[in-house]
């Protein structure tokens, strides 16, 4: 199971075990070192006592134990042992308890004695110290007597140290186990609590279907790390929702566009069959008009489909923009006058590199819409601005009842401000086609709405006026 919580639990526990182990081991080793040092100090003191009690006499050495501190060497207690050798290796003195065997001989200097652990022949674990020393002279010997050099090994029963270290191990090990258990106990609820927002985010995301795209993740209550994820998901959902809604709207619109004329045709035909006297020449004209409307719509949709698939054949050439605008506007001028629309043109002499058929179609659509939807007495203005290797053409007209949100749907197929399709003059495909034609020519067609005025801007590749007729190139409306 690839769960973040499980992986976090495992890794945190592993890390904790390692850290805790290292920490407890360090504590154990430090305490052990302190205890051994203390033990060694006691051993050194005992060894010093032995050296202090050792005297060089005329032909031999004597070892005297006088204070209670040396009771460990006593037979009854028998926890401390020593053995002294002369320079030639002969034993000059030893504890009674080690009669019959020797202590191992590891000798260091007086300033740097040797310490080590070993077992006596009896199996008793001991710790020993070994070093050379010079015994004091017996008081009756002259000061000039040559000083002998002896080697001493003192061994002390290690049982108390071993027991103490064992207890220390038990305490530290027990503490380690308790700490680990407590950590495991705390880690689970902490991880569950802290990972809950992530789990909730995951559950919420899993519940999202095509029918619940309006769902949004609550960003305010999420931890900082999850906010970018939730924000991006919300953005994605918004885009998906918009896309789904557009597709639904398109399907519904397409159905409506086709079903309504079909209903008209069928009703006309059935009426004529049911009541033959109801049929007259106008009925046939109506049927022809419906068929023409449907044919036009199918034709536009096919062109749109071709354009969307990039299957439009382009024939690009340099076109003087002024005459093109004039040619497109002239047939609409009468309708515009009928609505008392004021048309203004600010067109600098320039050419555009475009397919003349597609460009004419785009402009015709934009001007037709401007005349159709401008309120009576409104204004339609055209501005052409060449800039570098690009040229922009803007058509602005006043509109009523239009909103900023509407401007984002303008290029959707079948979108019309009025949801109903009263009248058949506009199919709702014109602007979709205009945008696809623009894309086919690498042009950009955008719409902007500001303070009751709708502006379409077409930006394309600037052409050359060279070779175009003078009258065309200098044309200004």
């Amino acid at each position, binding site marked *: 199971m690839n769960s973040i919580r499980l992986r976090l639990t495992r890794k945190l526990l592993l890390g904790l075990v390692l850290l805790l182990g290292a920490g407890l081991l360090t504590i154990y080793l430090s305490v052990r070192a302190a205890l051994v040092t203390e033990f060694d100090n006691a051993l050194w003191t005992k060894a010093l006592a032995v050296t202090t009690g050792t005297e060089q006499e005329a032909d031999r050495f004597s070892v005297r134990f006088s204070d209670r501190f040396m009771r460990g060497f006593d037979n009854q207690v028998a926890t401390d042992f020593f053995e002294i050798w002369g320079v030639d290796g002969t034993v000059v003195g030893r504890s009674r308890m080690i009669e019959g065997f020797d202590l191992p001989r590891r000798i260091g200097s007086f300033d740097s004695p040797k310490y080590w652990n070993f077992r006596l022949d009896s199996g008793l674990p001991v710790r020993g110290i070994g070093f050379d020393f010079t015994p004091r002279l017996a008081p009756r010997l002259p000061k000039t007597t040559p000083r002998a050099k002896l080697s001493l090994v003192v061994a002390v029963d290690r049982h108390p140290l071993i027991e103490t270290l064992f207890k220390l191990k038990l305490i530290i090990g027990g503490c380690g186990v308790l700490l680990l258990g407590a950590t495991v106990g705390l880690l689970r609820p902490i991880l569950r609590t802290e990972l809950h927002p992530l789990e909730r985010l995951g559950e919420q995301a899993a519940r999202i279907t095509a029918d619940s795209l309006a769902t949004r993740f609550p960003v305010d209550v999420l931890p900082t790390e999850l906010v970018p994820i939730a924000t991006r998901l919300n953005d994605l959902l918004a885009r998906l929702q918009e896309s789904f809604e557009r597709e639904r709207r398109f399907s519904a619109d397409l159905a409506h566009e086709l079903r309504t004329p079909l209903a*008209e045709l069928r009703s006309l035909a059935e*009426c004529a069959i*049911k009541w033959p006297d109801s049929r007259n020449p106008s009925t046939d004209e109506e049927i022809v008009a419906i068929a023409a409307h449907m044919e036009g719509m199918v034709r536009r949709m096919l062109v749109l489909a071709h354009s969307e698939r990039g299957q439009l054949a382009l024939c690009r050439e340099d076109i003087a923009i002024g005459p093109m605008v004039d040619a497109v506007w002239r047939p609409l001028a009468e309708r515009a006058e009928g609505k008392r629309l004021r048309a203004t043109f600010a067109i600098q002499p320039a050419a555009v590199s475009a397919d003349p058929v597609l460009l004419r179609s785009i402009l015709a659509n934009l001007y037709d819409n401007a005349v159709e939807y401008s309120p009576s007495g409104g204004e339609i203005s055209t501005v052409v601005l060449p800039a570098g290797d690009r040229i922009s053409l803007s058509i602005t007209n006043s509109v009523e009842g239009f909103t900023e949100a509407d401007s984002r749907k303008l290029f959707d197929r079948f979108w019309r401000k009025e949801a*109903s399709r009263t009248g058949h003059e506009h199919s709702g495909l014109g602007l979709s086609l205009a945008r696809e034609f623009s894309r086919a020519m690498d042009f950009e067609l955008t719409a902007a709405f500001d303070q009751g005025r709708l502006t379409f801007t077409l930006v394309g590749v600037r052409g050359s006026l060279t070779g175009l007729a003078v009258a065309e190139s200098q044309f200004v409306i």
Partner: protein
Amino acid sequence: MRVLLVEDSHRLRETLASALRRSGYAVDLAADGEEALSLATSNAYDAIVLDIMLPKVDGLEVLQRLRRQGNATHVLLLTARDAVQDRVDGLQKGADDYLVKPFSLEELLARVQALCRRVYNQKEPSLKIGDLEVDTVGRRVLRAGQPIELTMREYLLIEYLAHRPGQIVSRAEIEAHIYDDQIDPMSNVVDSAICSLRKKIGTANPAPLIHTRRGLGYVLEAASPLVATL
């Protein structure tokens, strides 16, 4: 029966209106939601045929406003939307029936007729008052088993009266449900039609079926209580 037809497509509106009129309905027309609301709130209709995608106020909004106003007129939604959710939406908002475009004209007429029958809680297509039988499907009238030849108006009048047997039906109600708005309020078109109807249904059996309640209207019933007591 008087029907309000609300459809924004001019061609479809005129075609359906013609079909409904030829089927004997008095038809009022509306091309947008505002007009539909105005007509529906100021007239008593037996049924409303309502398109959903309408200018100004859409059909579902019209339906909701009518229901909020307590208007219980049966509504047949007429639309190009065929998704299940669209139908559910329409029915949940108070529609009585739903028809998807393109539709069969006969089906539309049958559904409108069914809705009109429901106004009078009538489930059988045949109405019987004494020995008078009105076949609402075949649009025929029989008296004592003999068929009676009637004009469309006369048939609509007897059918309307037969839907409300024993009830007083005023001239205004008859005018509202049988005739278009064009009739002159001062004319005696209703009285003339009643007179003609009495003669025709009295041929097979002279026992009167249509009784006049002076100053109130007319009653269609097998025997007048007043006559019975005389």
